[in-house]
């Protein structure tokens, strides 16, 4: 399990990294925390000719407050930094609460926010959360930059809108509106495994205690983070009663997702879990929203 030969570059500035990407394009692979890429290289599933290592670019690792009350995360911010940041705990409690569910400490000390997003694994928590929180990503190439909303960023299994010459440099996560509640529920074989199914929910109540807005995203439920559009439609403008939640969870599990079967779970079991966890996530999110008046 040794990787095929490759050429290694360790730029110290973002600009330098971008010009390497401009030069080598499809032949190059970016190395962030290496927690997904290195195993794939050792299995020889990917054999990049050129590796551009971002680990020597200090400018890409930061957690800053956003002007909108949200957060700005540099792509090379380690999972561990996110997990232990008081700013994240305050401004993005959903992320704070979720971080310990991603792998285990060794992996979190190397893995990065940007790596997880760029890898676009539909089983990755941060991928789903970035959509649930309505985040935006800043992508740069040598000649400029563009912003892409998270909900448009993930286009297929391990596939994003990133061009071969582009780098994800930053994520911007807006604050949740007042009277919001959140939840992440997941079932994993072992606590540090990728989830068989996970559900991230963010809901907002209006003055009357009715559901004003809701976003629910399912993990490991399709090729991309699966947004439960139909389920959420059922809830909007409704009182979040047990029956309403139950009905929404049912729809999420049957109509909003497209899970597949593998050795760990059949599609049928995944739909069953999606139903159970959607209900539990919505219950907790609405309860928190009610408490957050």
């Amino acid at each position, binding site marked *: 399990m040794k990787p095929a*030969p490759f050429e290694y570059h360790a730029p110290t500035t973002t600009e330098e990294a971008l010009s390497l990407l401009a030069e080598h394009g499809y032949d190059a692979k970016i190395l962030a925390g290496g927690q997904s890429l290195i195993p794939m290289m050792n299995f020889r599933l990917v054999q990049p000719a050129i590796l551009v290592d971002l680990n020597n670019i200090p400018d890409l690792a930061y957690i800053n407050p956003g002007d909108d009350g949200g957060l700005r995360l540099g792509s090379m911010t380690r999972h561990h930094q996110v997990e232990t940041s008081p700013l994240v705990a305050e401004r993005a409690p959903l992320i704070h609460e979720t971080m310990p569910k991603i792998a285990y400490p060794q992996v979190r000390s190397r893995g990065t926010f940007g790596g997880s997003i760029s890898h676009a694994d539909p089983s990755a928590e941060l991928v789903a959360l970035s959509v649930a929180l309505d985040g935006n990503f800043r992508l740069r190439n040598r000649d400029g930059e563009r912003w892409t909303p998270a909900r448009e960023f993930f286009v297929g299994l391990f596939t994003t809108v990133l061009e071969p010459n582009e780098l994800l440099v930053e994520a911007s996560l807006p604050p949740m509106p007042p009277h919001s509640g959140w939840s992440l529920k997941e*079932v994993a*074989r*072992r606590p540090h*495994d990728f989830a068989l199914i996970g559900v991230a929910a963010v809901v907002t109540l209006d003055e009357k205690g009715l559901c004003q807005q809701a976003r629910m995203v399912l993990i490991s439920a399709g090729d991309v983070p699966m947004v439960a559009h139909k389920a959420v439609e059922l809830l909007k403008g409704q009182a979040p009663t047990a029956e309403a939640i139950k009905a929404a969870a049912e729809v999420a599990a049957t109509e909003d997702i497209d899970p597949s079967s593998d*050795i*760990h779970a059949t599609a049928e079991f995944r739909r069953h879990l999606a139903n159970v966890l959607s209900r539990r996530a919505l219950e907790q999110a609405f309860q928190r929203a009610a408490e957050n008046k």
Partner: protein
Amino acid sequence: MIKKFIGKRVMRNEDPRLLTGQAQFVDDVEIPGMLHAAFLRSDYAHARLLSIDVSAARQHPGVVAVFTAEDMGDDWFPGPPLVSPPPTAKDVTFHSRRQVPLVKDKVRHAGEAIAVVIAESRYIAEDAVEDILVEFEPLEAVVDLEKALEVNSVLVHDDLESNLAAQMFQQKGDYEAARQQADLVIQRRIVIERGAAAAMENRGIVAHWDAKSQHLTIWDTTQAPIPIRNGTAARLGLSEHQVRVIAPFIGGGFGPKIMMFYAEELVIPWAAKKLNRPVKWIEDRRENFYATTQERGQVHDVEIALSRDGHILGLKDNFLHDTGAYDPYGLTIPLNTQSHDMGGYDIKNYSSEFKVVFTNKTIVTPVRGAGRPQGIFVIERMMDAAAKELGMDAVEIRKRNLIPPEAFPYEHKIIDQAFAPLIFDSGNYKAVVDKALDMIGYDKFVKEEQPHLRVDGKYVGIAIAPFVETTGVGPYEGARVTVEASGKINVATGIGTQGQGHFTSFAQIVAEQLGVEVNDVRIVTGDTTEFHWGTGTFASRGAVVAGNAVHAASSIVRKKILKLASKVLEAPEDELELEDGQVRVADIPQKSVSLGELAVLANPLRGAVEPGTEPGLESTAYFGPQYGATAFGTHAMILEVDPETMMIKIRRYVTVEDCGTVLNPLILEGQIHGGVSMGLGNAYYEKLHFDENGQLLNASFADYLVVSATEMPRIEVGHLETRSTLNELGAKGVGEAGAIPVPALFAQALENAFHDRKLEILEMPLSPNRLFELLNEEKSR
């Protein structure tokens, strides 16, 4: 007062080295000029090899050699039969088919080695493996045990008439007659699937041929260094004294490392000699999933006959056993299954036939438990089925059938891996079960807590599973104990060590005999230059067989010490005491001599040694038990399951072991903890998924789920000590005990948790997904 070391929680002598990275493992061996090997392995499970072209690989820069079966010439021949069927047994069919160094004609399992590349680095070797071109004719794979025996099945070995590797029948009493008497007969089909041993350290070998001294040194992650030495010498036409095999520290054995000779063990030493360069091969995790042996696959058709009051009148168990592509390890596993099929119950009538089946899967040899967990799973599942049918309490039906204390030595009569009709030497089974019940608070839980939990909508089940473990089988082990001039003791034994704490438990035995501190005893294991008689570490036999050899040798050394000291101190031997590295006259403590001084006196540089005496304070002794010592234990657990997600939480886990004399409770508990973790894997996490083409679908730790710290419950360990009558220490083995009853226990606990469902579990391992399916099937019944 003489210090006692046996039975004390002595910290392990070897741990400082292990924990600070100062212990030598095979991959730590570095030799100037050393080359690295990588194997080309088959992607197909079953295919004819039409042609192989290694020319491009040979041209690859940095490659020194590429070898195929062809290149091995006359040195190509299969591995030796490791274990043959019991010579004592009648009516045995056995077709011996053994693994080959490199595939010549036909691939018989995915991952079988076809060629080896030897290069300046492992990286280059792996690159060049990709340059080898092989033309295959893919064949249908034999995967399913039952289909494998159908008349029109494709054959794993073309020269045999069928895929039947072996067949054997054993019985005692008269099952059919017992069945006629029965009030209740229950039949079930039970399926047990394969798992991996998943040792932390994979296999590895370094071979170094020194042409000038005509000597071959091999470092090997083997559990059996001496047989590896002898076999390698024979294969390469060398004297046994030209070959030294070192099994250094090993990161876990669990059985697969007792298997020999692996293809790599046949190829690497041969290649090193041929190239006259040291060669290293370190197995990677993916190779380990394909090329290191596995265990557990069996299908049982069981029948139990009972009287209305819950007494077992007879048991019949016909089963299939998957041996994979070859059967070098003979019948050890199915024999163990037969000898554990009746657990610790007094069953007078038993009938069992097993068929061993060749399949296009990785070779099967013992993995911790080695056929015993299957036997215990079968009998315990039948006990639970019977209890339900009879409306009896799960504990009561078990107690009613346990072998009573007065029945020992108990004639079990079934031939086991020791090749003789089994006898259980000693035991007090009911006391062990009672202690486990007491520790877990069985009655209180069932009467007071469980009803409340059920009212609260919680699914919490309790279970109790007794089991036997045959341990400490022969043939023999030996040890040499030497008092050195420093007063420290050196002990050499032939068995290897893979984490069992031999450096401590053996030292305790010696320290107790010779009156020294435990860390004054240096233990050497697994180096054939230090000791070259013995077989290996397997079958929970290290402490029993090697331990008693160490005990015997140190007793003789003790006698030599006393004899010499008696002369030096001018006092009779029975007035002497050994303590703190000194021999003292009991009532006159100032009259003493140190062991070091005695050692020098026993090995003088001048003067005469009395005729008939040997120099030094040294002795070599051997121990070979008449038959194995049988241990007993009981596990109990309280298990909570989320009925919606199938996720589990173990609230309590209790084990009570009776493995005779406990040498070191700390080490014993470590063995139990490790065993339980493997057992939990076999119950709910660890299953090798082979598809219909014989492809392994989860050949990595991302998908093969070993139990990790997060799944482990806190384990409460209780001990009872019923001495073995078969050895002086009174010890029985415990190395595999922890793993044996866990799947049976887990199934019982799950059924008990789902009190409002007719859940019946007849397969292992389960998974949340499978449990969900079983509950759905129950719903639609």
